[in-house]
C-alpha cells in the first residue's frame, strides 16, 4: 500500500492503517517537537497531542500538502499555544543592530563537526535556541532545518513571506552569534 492508500483507509476508520501512520511519523513528529520544546517530556506530550489531533481530524486532510507538513502545523500550533500560556523571558529581537558584528572571523573551522558525540556543543546549541522565542524558533526549524519553502513555512505559522524572511534572518544571526560567543570563550 502506498501512503495515499494508507491515508484513505485510515480516514475511513481503519485503525490498523491509523497505527501505521502513527508509526511512520512518530520519529519525525517527536524530533520536530523536541527541536522546538527542547525538553523530552514536553516533546512527548506534544507528540501525543499532535497524533490525537491527527486521529480526530485526518478526514480534513486534503492531500494538497505532504502529511508531514500538515503534522508540523499541528506541532507548531500546539507549541505556540503552550508558549503563550507561560510568560517566559526571551531575547528581544527588536534590537537588530545587536545581531550583527563589525567583522566576521573565519575561525569556525575549529568547531568540531561531529555534533552527535559532542555534549559540550549540544549544550551550546540548546542554550542558544532556548533564548530564542518560539515564534522565531519555529520559523528557523521549519525553513532551515526541515527544509520547507518560505511559502510553506508562512502557511504553517500564518505569517506573510516577508515576515518569514525577516524572522528567519534574525533567528539565523542570533543563533550564529550565540554559538560564536560560546566558542570564543
Amino acid at each position: 500500500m502506498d501512503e495515499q492508500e494508507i491515508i484513505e483507509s485510515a480516514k475511513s476508520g481503519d485503525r490498523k492503517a491509523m497505527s501505521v501512520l502513527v508509526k511512520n511519523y512518530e520519529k519525525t513528529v517527536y524530533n520536530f517537537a523536541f527541536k522546538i520544546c527542547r525538553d523530552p517530556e514536553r516533546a512527548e506530550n506534544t507528540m501525543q497531542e499532535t497524533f490525537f489531533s491527527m486521529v480526530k481530524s485526518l478526514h480534513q486532510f486534503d492531500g494538497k500538502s505532504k502529511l508531514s507538513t500538515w503534522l508540523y502545523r499541528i506541532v507548531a500550533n500546539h507549541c505556540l499555544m503552550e508558549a503563550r500560556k507561560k510568560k517566559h523571558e526571551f531575547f528581544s529581537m527588536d534590537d537588530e543592530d545587536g545581531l550583527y558584528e563589525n567583522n566576521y572571523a573565519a575561525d569556525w573551522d575549529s568547531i568540531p563537526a561531529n555534533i552527535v558525540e559532542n555534549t559540550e556543543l549540544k549544550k551550546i546549541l540548546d542554550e542558544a535556541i532556548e533564548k530564542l522565542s518560539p515564534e522565531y524558533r519555529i520559523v528557523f526549524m521549519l525553513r532551515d532545518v526541515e527544509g520547507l519553502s518560505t511559502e510553506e513555512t508562512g502557511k504553517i505559522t500564518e505569517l506573510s513571506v516577508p515576515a518569514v524572511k525577516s524572522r528567519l534572518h534574525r533567528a539565523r544571526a542570533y543563533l550564529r552569534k550565540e554559538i560564536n560567543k560560546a566558542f570564543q570563550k
Partner: protein
Amino acid sequence: MSDEKVTCKDVMSHICESLGEDLDSPRCKAIKDHLDECQDCKNYFKSVERTVDFYKKYDVELPPDAHTRLLDYLGLKDE
C-alpha cells in the same frame, strides 16, 4: 555590475529567493555582486550554514516506551 549600493548589513539581512521576488531585481543583483567580493559576508554566511547544519544533525531518539505510551494514549494497538 549593479548600480545599487548595499552594505554588509543589507546583505546579511536580506534573503533573495524566487518566491514573490524577482531574483534579477537590482537589489538581488547588488547583493550577489557584494557577496562575490566581500570576505566578511562570505564568513558570515559560512558560519550561518554551519549553524543550520549543527541543528540539522541534532537528532534525538524516541524515548523507550514512548511508542507504546503513544498508542495507548490514542487507543490504538500495534498490529
